[in-house]
């Protein structure tokens, strides 16, 4: 029954441990890239079919230099920034209102029972198909048209998961609160919301990926020149595949960044959760 809390290992030790943990992943990534390069070289694959990773990388570095140069500018980075803000804006609006709606509907069982089937049905609708309509509503060059698509895409999974988390509360934990004669607002803040956090975060993780997909695909339907979706279609149309692939790389980097940001927030807000417990 000795339960002394373990002393935190030194920073160097922790980095070392991390590296060892991630080394298989890193090895796989490097292996894939090297294999890719070799295959393109051996089979002499045309660059418009599949550019070499080295070509994509040098194009990427070129854009970084342009971006950093005082008098120049990089269309790629400008496009990345625009798409990033569209995705982020849509994510915040969509997830925020999804959580808010869940809080409101779960407060009254009747409303949540009446709305949930619609939310679940709406969740299986390919919302991206509304992109041209949003372009008409908000204007094709207005970032709001893309934000709207992203917001609608992330709204439903966030709302559905949050309602689940708020309502799937252990019966005896509720009885406990009843025995304290706790008011509904207290039960909401002390029990239902903490109980919903893991559900909310699993929705946010999905939403973080969905928001970038939504923004880029919505841009495929038209938008300002300086957005990743338009950039990819234009460069691919001009057979400049290294540029198109670099834009895809940027989109991936932003997506991974989004996901990691949600993960960090999750660890901050629920360090108690089972998924973050140190394995013995």
């Amino acid at each position: 029954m000795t339960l002394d809390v373990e002393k935190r290992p030194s920073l160097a030790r922790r980095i070392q441990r991390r590296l060892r943990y991630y080394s298989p992943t890193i090895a796989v990534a490097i292996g894939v890239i090297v294999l890719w390069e070799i295959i393109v070289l051996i089979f002499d694959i045309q660059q418009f079919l599949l550019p070499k990773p080295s070509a994509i990388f040098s194009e990427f570095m070129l854009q970084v230099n342009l971006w950093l140069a005082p008098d120049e500018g990089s269309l790629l980075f400008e496009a990345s920034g625009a798409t990033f803000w569209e995705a982020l804006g849509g994510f915040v609006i969509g997830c925020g209102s999804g959580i808010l709606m869940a809080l409101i509907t779960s407060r009254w069982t009747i409303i949540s029972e009446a709305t949930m089937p619609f939310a679940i049905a709406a969740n299986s609708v390919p919302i991206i198909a509304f992109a041209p309509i949003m372009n008409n509503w908000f204007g094709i060059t207005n970032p709001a048209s893309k934000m709207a698509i992203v917001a609608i895409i992330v709204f439903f999974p966030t709302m559905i998961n949050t309602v689940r988390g708020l309502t799937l509360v252990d019966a005896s934990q509720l009885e406990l609160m009843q025995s304290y004669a706790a008011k509904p607002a207290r039960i909401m803040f002390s029990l239902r919301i903490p109980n919903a956090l893991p559900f909310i975060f699993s929705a946010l993780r999905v939403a973080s990926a969905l928001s970038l997909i939504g923004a880029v695909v919505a841009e495929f339907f038209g938008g300002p020149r300086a957005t990743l979706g338009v950039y990819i279609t234009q460069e691919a149309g001009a057979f400049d595949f290294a540029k198109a692939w670099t834009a895809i790389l940027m989109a991936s980097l932003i997506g991974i960044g989004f996901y990691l940001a949600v993960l960090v927030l999750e660890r901050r807000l629920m360090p108690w959760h089972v998924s973050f417990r140190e394995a013995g």
Partner: protein
Amino acid sequence: MSAEQGVVIAAQGINKIFNPGSDEEVIALQDINLSVESGEFISLIGPSGCGKSTLMRLVGDLLQPTSGDLLVNGKSAREARLDRDYGMVFQAATLYDWRSVTKNVQLPLEVMGYAKEERRKRAQAMLEMVELGAFAGHYPWQLSGGMQQRVSIARALVFDPSILLMDEPFGALDEFTRERMNLELLRIWEQTGKTIIFVTHSISEAVFLSGRIVVMSPRPGRITKIVSNDLPYPRDFKTRSDPAYHALVAEVRELLRDAVGSGPPGAMHAP
């Protein structure tokens, strides 16, 4: 434990029917008459489906009787609940994962609006009573099952309710831990003088702990007999080798066998 201290729980002609009038109608409790004195330790025992948990939930106003009179501390069960007369302990410790041990114990005090310093002091005192004073800052998942259940007992007692309702609190623990917890519970009971209603399906546990054992039978849930246990307190591990203790265990077992035998075949395997 004298009778003059007064009746805490008075149940008369209590019936509880689930889904009345429908095809799934279940008579969970039929004509329950029970009176519990202040400071008494009373066990409810019986096979699954005998309504022992239902009876405990009626007393705690987590369920309402279909008919009959139920008075707790001279008021309705609902008023008693709103006056926070009940501390509850369930089979699962039902601690909140996101709260540290001390914050879990402070939960009822937070709900009831106690000041921060008072909350902290009371929680620490309770944790020391259940011998977990050094674990205040730990999280529930860092504790063993027995320790978690002790935290849950501390949480039930921290706001000083007059009645402790315990629904198979040690049912999920191993035999050794359970026997240790029994001793600990008796010590806490003697220290605090609470009235305890203890639901269990362990005969030895019921006999060891309680002053009276309410033996119940299923379908419909009824009280077969209330067995008085005059073995003196304080009880300890030696009590378990007392011939009088064994006689009581045998008596309760016999009553339970009759109770199960009188039901329809398969009654024992019902949920």
